[in-house]
């Protein structure tokens, strides 16, 4: 017991920053979703890892960050080697008012620059980690995400023709959780133009609605 507790003391703190490890900060879960996506994408596409700049070139943001300093991925057509989409994690996008939003994962157009605006974003995913996996997506989470879709003008727009295998149903604006779906009717998700992906966790069978 002493050994287990001693190792906990070390593991519970991030080694360099000495910040407490909090799984419900979402960024670990967000990275997990990103790698699940990349793993699926590699079946059909070529993928490029693009380093960021400076000290954070290999580091995903804990909190909303500038795109330029952070790593991202490019999805390429295998034959032509043309970039089809960029995939960014936790970086900022200017909305219709010029205010920054930072969805957990954003699919951006191939020519989106270092300070992308809403017109360069095609689709977004947001991660909601629940410490109790019976917890539902809340009304607040659903409405905030729906509102982001509005200020990023992603509601009702054409979805990218991404050819996925296991994650084929996730080609949409998605709110992804290891917990349960919200209590809102499917019609509301359709109206907001989003999907809820629940029970998304290693070793579990996820479900998507609507």
């Amino acid at each position, binding site marked *: 017991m002493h050994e287990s507790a001693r190792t906990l003391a070390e593991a519970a703190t991030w080694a360099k920053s000495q910040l407490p*490890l909090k799984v419900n900060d979402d960024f670990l879960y967000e990275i997990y979703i990103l*790698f699940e996506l990349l793993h699926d994408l590699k079946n059909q596409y070529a993928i490029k890892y693009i380093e960021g700049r400076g000290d954070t070139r290999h580091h995903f943001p804990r909190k909303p960050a500038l795109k330029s300093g952070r790593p991202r991925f490019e999805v390429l057509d295998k034959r032509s080697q043309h970039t089809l989409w960029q995939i960014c994690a936790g970086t900022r996008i200017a909305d219709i008012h010029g205010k920054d939003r930072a969805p957990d994962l954003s699919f951006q157009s191939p020519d989106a620059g270092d300070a992308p605006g809403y017109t360069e974003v095609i689709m977004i995913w947001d991660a909601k980690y629940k410490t109790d996996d019976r917890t539902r997506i809340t009304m607040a989470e659903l409405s905030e995400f729906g509102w982001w879709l509005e200020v990023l003008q992603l509601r009702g727009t054409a979805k990218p023709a991404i050819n996925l295998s296991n994650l084929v149903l996730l080609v949409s604006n998605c709110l992804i959780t290891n917990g349960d779906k919200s209590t809102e009717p499917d019609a509301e998700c359709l109206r907001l133009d989003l999907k809820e992906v629940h029970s998304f966790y*290693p070793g579990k069978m996820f479900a998507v609605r609507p």
Partner: protein
Amino acid sequence: MNYWAVDDANISPPNDLTIFSNRVVNMRHGDEVVLFKRVGDNDIEFHTRAIIEESQVGRYEEDKQKYVAHLSNLRVLTDSSLLSELTYSLQKIYNFRQPRRHFLRKYLSLSQYDFDSITSGSIYWARTAFGIYINMLGRQQLEHFIQETAASSPEVFIHQWDFGLAWKVLRQFIEVQYIAAAELLRFVHARADQISGSDIPNLNYMELGVSTEDGENDSLYEQEVLLSKFLAATRPEEGDLLERLSHRIAEESASQEAFQEAFRYTSWPLQTIEG
């Protein structure tokens, strides 16, 4: 009748106890004592119990007295007990960082509860499990635990003496925070290995990390190693340690009732946190 713990350095074989002290030594005929010795840098071992048979006090120096007692009925404890194992089962202890500091004196009084726990080697498992793990959480993790618990199980704070409940909540916190983080990172690593190499040649999991804009860069792999060590120590092949502790607490609930009574008016056994 009173109960005492006595440093065995004051015993001259086979059974004479001599203490020079500038305090009044009030161990009396019929009192029970348990003898201890220092072990290593930080521990002590209780090994023998005895009864004070006869005692006398004489003046030694100006303000010191010489206390001499004869011990009878010496019995070596069948299970000698280490203080490090008994820390959270003794009412006497409040310095959880350095419990041996309570035993620096040549002798000290014990409650009957403490004497019985020491001589029978019985452990208050719920308080021990809770105490050992919670005192390994740093300041910020402790605050995080308190915030989460206040939101999800406020009854834990109302019944602070219910260490069975406190352990249940702490165990759950450890599992959903740290075991889940270990699982997620292991999975990310596995996926990264699957897609790096031929698919994404310049992707190297060992280099990946997380950071704030102005903060230090934390490595995913480094944290995964630390979490894996915790996982290996907590979920060894012979079974989940946290589960075994919970099982033991449930199994011994009847014998733990005396402990629950003894610690009824105490709060959480937190060690002092600097800052």
